[in-house]
């Protein structure tokens, strides 16, 4: 009794489509996360997004004047702001997804999104 497996064209199509779905899910899960962190700046005028990997200086307008945000060496910090006590400048540089700096008087919020979210381990137990 010959055992002939008959794989039909639709089977091939289903396999190919499934592989496509697997690939899409992999891109969806791991794709933009790897190293592609973004700097999101929210201010009175709207929201701006810059890559964390490119150095630049950004002047963000607010009610008191211009807040100077600098991206250097894959970190971002508020370098100057026309606020009274400069808490935002003192906050220093951030680089990990989820971190943020705010300058409340000038209504500027800087945060980092994407990238390796789990890079910093909070705690581990053995």
């Amino acid at each position, binding site marked *: 009794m010959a055992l002939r497996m008959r*794989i039909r064209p*639709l*089977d091939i199509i289903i*396999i190919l489509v*499934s592989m496509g*779905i*697997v690939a899409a*899910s992999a891109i*969806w899960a791991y794709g933009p996360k790897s190293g592609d962190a973004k700097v999101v700046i929210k201010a009175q005028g709207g929201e701006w997004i810059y890559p964390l990997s490119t150095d630049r200086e950004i002047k963000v307008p607010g009610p008191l004047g211009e807040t100077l945000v600098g991206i250097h060496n894959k970190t971002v910090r508020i370098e100057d702001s026309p606020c009274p006590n400069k808490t935002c400048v003192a906050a220093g540089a951030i680089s990990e997804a989820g971190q943020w700096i705010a300058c409340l008087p000038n209504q500027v919020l800087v945060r980092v999104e994407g990238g390796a979210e789990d890079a910093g381990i909070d705690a581990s137990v053995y």
Partner: protein
Amino acid sequence: MPESTPQFTKAVKRASAADVTALLGAFCFFLSALEYMVPKPLPFMRLGIANLPILLATDLLPLPWFLALALVKVVGMSVISGSLFSYIAVFSLAGTLTAALTMRGGRKLFGRHISAVGISILGAMVSNAVQIVIASVLVFGEAARLIAPPFLIMGLVTGTLLGLFAEAFAKKSLWCASAKALLGKTGKVHA
């Protein structure tokens, strides 16, 4: 009851459907036990061998019996893995039922243009996708997408292998052929 009357044929078909469902259901229990013994790299990850009877039943059983078999599989799996009265049973139930209906629908829609391999992959992909969605709602939230790729790849591979086995088995098995004939399915009897 005289043989060859319509009532007699109907009675035979009904009795046969019950017999076949019971036998395949027992296989679901047995294969669930095998499944449970195989070590897995991730919790919830399954080979899906307990779906083999459902895959075979796609071409054999009338719809109500087919759904009954799917429920038997859910109960069997949950009893054996001890998760019957936990939220994990929700995963099993949703995954198995949607997969069963998809496989049935795929056969109805594509008929002879698709083999057990395609049907099996359809079921595996749908089952995994549904369970990932449920996981995102119940447990993991947005992070569920991180578990999607390994589960879908695993589903594709095991689904293909299971389909190949089912296709070969359905072709070669005398039991399958006689069950088909008893249940009045139009499939050719390869004896």
